[in-house]
């Protein structure tokens, strides 16, 4: 059987270091006279950037996922939130995050647990999922109980998705106006003067970073795939932590060059690649070994709409293919231009489509299936995230109707009590066998 050459990614350590520094920078921001804020991975992070170069964020979902990876700490976080009276059916990231506040502990990227959860100076969030605004409302409430008053600003972006035509101007304006007010709010709560030039830079960085990530994902159309999804998790995460930062753009530029080189030289992520799958929604973070189990069957997971479109920005070309979204004609020059540009850019986010239109998500997945030469789709019915699981049963219908083999499995991205590893693996191997695959020699 043919074996492809493999190589470790050269920028792997840089990715690890960037992520490590991110959590440390947030922790130590005050020592450097800096400001720290908390909010979701989808928040308009380029806006607080106008407060200065020393502004550090802690984005909630990646932090919740980091906690989930370290099962002992996760269990303690869940116990703490349940003891505080919160239902165990809530968003698992959110419960992890609150647990960290309740325990007054902070976890770094390498799993080191620090005493004292570093409270943010302000919360800057956006809201499309039912839990987004509520998450930080409670975080603020919990901080207040500890004696820290944290001001909160949350931008409502739930205006629908531009399926066939651009969103109406009044919808764009609604978000724009909230951001515009938000700039004044930031000045008020921090006492800092706002710098529009920094805002314009940050917006441009975000646009570039989210385009670059789409370019990198596009390279995975190659056979053999240069990247596997498990590795991509460590790479896409930069876009969820710091999509507006120059370090993110620089890292993605370097990564793109390296992946292009891998494609040129036929370097594979999985040496035995013979069956290509994609997944959907966040994985069960404590059980990433399922990807290694797949490799034993020669299966490579190329990514997912989640890994490609959570941060990456895409568009449909006139010929119907899915491709990186075009760069706006020029870098923004004023606050108004920058805010409007980032709103118009963001409302197209692929991972927002399914919140409203299951058909839109099915269409995107089918584009990936076709263009990335995918053999089957593994749908993670994720009990931990109602936002990304909404309409997932409809997506299953759409894929099955289109003739795509689908393997649905139930789990939880952040609560290991809701993932049955042996059961899932047993069903998964049966599925692969039904696809004609046999386990390769170890």
């Amino acid at each position: 059987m043919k074996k492809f050459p493999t190589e470790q990614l050269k920028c792997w350590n840089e990715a690890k270091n960037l992520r490590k520094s991110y959590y440390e920078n947030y922790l130590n921001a005050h020592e450097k006279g800096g400001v720290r804020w908390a909010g979701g991975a989808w928040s308009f992070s380029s806006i607080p950037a106008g407060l200065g170069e020393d502004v550090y964020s802690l984005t909630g979902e990646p932090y919740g996922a980091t906690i989930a990876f370290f099962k002992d700490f996760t269990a303690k976080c869940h116990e703490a939130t349940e003891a505080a009276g919160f239902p165990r059916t809530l968003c698992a990231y959110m419960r992890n995050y609150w647990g960290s506040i309740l325990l007054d502990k902070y976890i770094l990227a390498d799993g080191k647990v620090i005493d004292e959860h570093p409270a943010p100076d302000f919360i800057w969030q956006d809201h499309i999922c039912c839990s987004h605004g509520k998450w930080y409302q409670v975080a603020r409430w919990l901080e207040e109980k500890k004696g820290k008053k944290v001001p909160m600003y949350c931008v409502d972006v739930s205006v629908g998705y531009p399926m066939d035509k651009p969103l109406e101007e009044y919808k764009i304006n609604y978000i724009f106006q909230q951001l515009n007010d938000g700039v004044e709010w930031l000045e008020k709560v921090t006492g800092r003067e706002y710098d529009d030039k920094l805002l314009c830079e940050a917006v441009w960085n975000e646009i570039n970073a989210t385009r670059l990530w789409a370019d990198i994902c596009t390279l995975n159309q190659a056979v053999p795939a240069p990247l596997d999804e498990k590795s991509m998790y460590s790479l896409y995460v930069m876009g969820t932590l710091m999509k507006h930062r120059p370090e993110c753009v620089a890292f993605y530029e370097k990564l793109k060059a390296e992946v292009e080189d891998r494609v040129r030289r036929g370097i594979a992520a999985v040496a035995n690649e013979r069956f290509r799958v994609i997944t959907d929604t966040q994985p069960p973070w404590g059980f990433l070994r399922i990807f290694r189990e797949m490799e034993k069957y020669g299966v490579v997971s190329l990514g997912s709409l989640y890994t490609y479109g959570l941060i990456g920005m895409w568009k449909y070309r006139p010929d119907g293919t899915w491709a990186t979204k075009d760069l706006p004609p020029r870098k923004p020059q004023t606050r108004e231009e920058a805010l409007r540009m980032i709103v118009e850019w963001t409302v197209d986010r692929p991972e927002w489509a399914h919140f409203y239109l299951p058909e839109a998500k099915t269409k995107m997945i089918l584009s990936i299936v076709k263009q990335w030469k995918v053999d089957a789709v593994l749908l993670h019915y994720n009990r931990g995230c109602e936002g990304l699981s909404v309409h997932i049963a409809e997506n299953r219908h759409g894929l099955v109707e289109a003739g795509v083999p689908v393997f649905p499995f139930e789990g939880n991205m952040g609560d290991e009590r809701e993932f049955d590893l042996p059961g899932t693996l047993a069903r998964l191997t049966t599925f692969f066998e039904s696809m004609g695959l046999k386990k390769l020699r170890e």
Partner: protein
Amino acid sequence: MVEEIFQKFRDWIDNRHEYAKEWKEKTNRKIIGYFCTYVPEEILYAADILPVRILGSHEPPTVTEPYIFAMFCHLCRDSLAQGLKGKFDYLDGIVEGQSCLHLRQTFNAWRLHIPVDYAYYIYVPHSVQTPHATPYLTQELAKFKHSLEEWIGRKVTDSDLDRGIRTMNRNRELMRKIYEYRKLDNPKITGLEAMEMVLSSQMVDKEEHSKLVEQLLRELPNRKLNRNPGTRLMIIGSEDDDRIFMQNVENLGATFVIDEHCTGSRYLWNNVSPSEDRLGAIAERYVDRVPCPSKDWPEFTRVKHAVNLAQEFKAQGALVIQNKFCDPHGIEIPPLKEALKSIGVPIYPLEFDVTVPWGQFRTRVEAFLETLTGLEDLF
């Protein structure tokens, strides 16, 4: 006579589909089903359409699994089940006013799998605490009105909108007056009866309903309930139409003197303040109403409202109905508990699903009531 009125509310609920079919035949007008109370019924009444709320049946779910992942709330699954089973086959259309992901999913599954002529989703803002919400919703409502006009083939005029606003305002105002009788030391109506009044208003023609509520208002002052009100309870939750649970709890020596959910006071607590800009006035009402927790951030205004209600209606304790998997409501339980505790009102949360395990709940509710009233009576 009062008993007959309450019986009529009950009959309307029990025979809601028969009522709707007869109404349609009698009036030759359209009926629209809606899922959440963020749908502005004023505009539907203005268009001579009967809005009816789609709710579940509390029968074990058997048909929704292929369409909605089972970790979504029972209201959304049970509501869809009614559609899949053909119970709402008389509907001409469905409309949803953005509230939560769960009901949005029901709306979309209905749109995709159950034939209707018309399906419309109103993007009601999630942030009702921003000053930009009302102008934004006004434009959303204008778009909705335009879409309805295209569907029904006629203009909805200002005078139609005035009529729609009057119809809704009158009904809400009348029911609020009935709620005043719940404040009495010996309330004139039980929690179950109040629930049946509000629930039925979401199922039948408001004009007809209002006439009956008016009649009730005339006769209620003379009513003497032949029961000891017992412990004064509040019920708090999201959508709650479990009448058997209400009855069972009230049979344990308690009366629900007030509620905070969307099949109760949340539905009727504020009116449209008429103004020249009709759609703006309607938008303002839906932005300013007692919010669903899904829209209530960054401040906990609903929690404050619940505290006010508890004080005003002299509740001794509160049962919190947590519809399993409803994140916005579940998230608020600890802040709600703390706020109510601060005024001396303990809460007890119960997790609800499509069916309710009354055997277990009975023991737990009895124990809660004992903590409110002391144990002396037992020994």
